[in-house]
């Protein structure tokens, strides 16, 4: 039972570079989410998706792009990385709307130099 995986687990990149964080889930959950975790802010929602080819902005979407061509994958791309995007990124999935909890991946620690 692989669950939800993220890659890479750690990434160092330079300002201005494009970087893509991968998220893969094996449960066929409809809903997927990207969060960033920063000290003092808890988790903030970047983007979310209700199904393949359906995505929407969360609380802090600027500088990020997502796609969801397949149900199981939800990559997050930083088009031109900035130092303010240094953070820990978590992907999550949920089986449905309403009362269902979200299940989280192990996270990707991204450092932008």
């Amino acid at each position, binding site marked *: 039972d692989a669950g939800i995986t993220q890659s890479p687990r750690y990434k160092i990149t330079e300002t201005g570079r494009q970087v893509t964080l991968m998220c893969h889930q094996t449960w066929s959950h409809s*809903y997927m*989410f990207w969060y960033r975790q920063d000290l003092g802010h808890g988790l903030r*929602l970047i983007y979310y998706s209700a199904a393949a080819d359906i995505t929407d902005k*969360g609380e802090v979407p600027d500088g990020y792009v997502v796609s969801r061509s397949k149900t199981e994958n939800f990559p997050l791309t930083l088009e031109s990385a900035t130092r303010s995007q240094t953070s820990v990124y978590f992907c999550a999935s*949920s089986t449905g709307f*309403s009362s269902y*909890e*979200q299940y*989280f991946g192990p996270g990707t620690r991204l450092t932008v130099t």
Partner: protein
Amino acid sequence: AQSVAQPEDQVNVAEGNPLTVKCTYSVSGNPYLFWYVQYPNRGLQFLLKYITGDNLVKGSYGFEAEFNKSQTSFHLKKPSALVSDSALYFCAVRDGDHDYKLSFGAGTTVTVRA
């Protein structure tokens, strides 16, 4: 709009003592409330949730939480804390009537000393 407040950045308790982590929420619709725990260098793990029904909810690892609608609170409790409960705890809320997005509090670091 929805939001969560965790008024304590840190909670320190001795092993064997009761543990309480506080959470208050604001939501326009019907509140769906969740608690998650995060151990160092790990993702968040689901502990428990309140959707409807009994105000006292029991979850994993001996944790429970009490929903109080009049005080808009959802405090997490454990009768007897263990050293292994030391972790970062997050409360989260969703507007159950309108949205599936979760809003998280800033987190509370719990330290249980032996």
